[in-house]
């Protein structure tokens, strides 16, 4: 893929795709789209296409992994071979292993795991097409898949990344913005508890820039949180309206 020519963001803070510095990519979310999984959700954020599914709580296999006092959340973040520019081997890469771990940590605080001892909740995040910010979009959808499966939670978990692009702080970087930019700060958040459950950063930021990036990401999270709730309610709202007719 050729590198982007020219600037990615102009002096007025308008980016190549027309977005302002604090605008999210166009996002759609659907819940309950897989019939076999206990819960599922699908998100499209810009060119990202991510499918998430939950099985459980159910018996743990292998049995020795069972915890006596809580359920075990297992998470698999995986990218399809055709999801990126150069075909990616289907075997889990080190990046996928790390992301699976941090995503699990991001979602665990919201789940009442202690209600279901000796079971496991298996969460799958399949990136069908990737264009930057997939761990965040994956978390946003995965939280809905958990709700769709009827897993009781303290709050939904929502995630969004902010970063620095050609000297300016921006929200929701796409792939080329991430590659060319100076920093990327993915963040996951539970709004009710004001709890940041995922926070990573790579690049270089001063402490002040880091603070601004966090605040920018939280703004993006607030917008996505509303979309999550609407997506969960969508099916029921449609049925209710049909019934009225």
């Amino acid at each position, binding site marked *: 893929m050729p590198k982007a020519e020219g600037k990615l963001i102009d002096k007025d803070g308008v980016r190549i795709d027309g977005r302002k510095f604090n605008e999210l990519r166009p996002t759609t979310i659907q819940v309950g789209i897989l019939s076999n999984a206990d819960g599922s959700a699908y998100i499209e954020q810009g060119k990202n296409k991510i499918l998430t599914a939950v099985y459980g709580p159910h018996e743990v296999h292998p049995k020795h992994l069972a915890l006596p006092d809580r359920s075990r959340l297992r998470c698999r973040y995986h990218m399809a071979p055709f999801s990126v520019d150069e075909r990616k081997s289907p075997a889990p890469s080190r990046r996928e292993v790390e992301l699976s771990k941090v995503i699990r940590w991001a979602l665990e605080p919201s789940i009442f795991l202690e209600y279901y001892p000796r079971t496991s909740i298996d969460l799958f995040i399949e990136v069908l097409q990737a264009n930057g910010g997939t761990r965040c979009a994956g978390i946003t959808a995965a939280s809905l898949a958990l709700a769709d499966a009827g897993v*009781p939670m303290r709050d939904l978990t929502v995630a969004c990344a902010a970063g620095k692009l050609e000297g300016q702080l921006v929200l929701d970087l796409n792939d080329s913005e991430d590659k060319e930019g100076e920093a990327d700060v993915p963040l996951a958040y539970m709004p009710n508890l004001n709890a940041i459950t995922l926070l990573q950063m790579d690049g270089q930021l001063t402490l002040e820039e880091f603070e601004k990036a966090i605040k920018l990401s939280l703004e993006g999270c607030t917008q996505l949180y509303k979309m999550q709730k609407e997506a969960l309610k969508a099916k029921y709202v449609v049925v209710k309206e049909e019934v009225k007719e």
Partner: protein
Amino acid sequence: MPTFYERRQLVTPGDLVAEGNYIAGENTFKENEKLYATRVGLVEYEERKVSVVALKSFYIPEVGDTVIGKVMEITLGGWILDIDAPYPAVLRASDVMERSYRPQKNELSSIFDIGDLVIAKIVSYDRTRDPLLTVREPGLGKITRGQIIEITSTKIPRIIGRKGSMISMIKRETGCHILLGQNGVVLISGKNLEDEQLAVMAIRKIEDESHTSGLTDRVAEMLKKEKEGEIKNA
């Protein structure tokens, strides 16, 4: 002491339902005087108790529940059943046979084999052990005819209806015998397949529209229409 939703309004996990001196009912949790929903469902108020009737949930075994399960495994001591719950259920051989009798595996399979459907009752269950079943009471045992469908267990009360009004209506209109397992597995057996299909349609409709009102009338209407259609096509 404010509440933020009306009765039967739809909420999602994390929605703040009430604040103040309320009791946290089903599918809610309380933190610092604030009461939040933990599942997608409809808000219910019962004096000072706030709960959410879950539209999305799964069955958690309760002692005394009648459940319909499928035999998954035969062990030396009995059977392991899938009751559509996070935990598999155990039915001991001693429950079915005399206490002193030492059963062989192939004898057990002649009583309940893998794949058989069984109606049973939960006799014990706690956090440290899988639920234990019994088939000793009348009406329990192997299912030999009919078909089963699986629905969200929290919707069973909706299928029963107020004072059984919904379920009696469906039984009447379809002429089917319907057994509701508390675990969301429903057994339907009728005179023929068409009658059973009618009952299935009715139950699926209730499941999809359980969050709306006037459901009993709509289901009755649908059944009447379908039956008329059948008579016309016959």
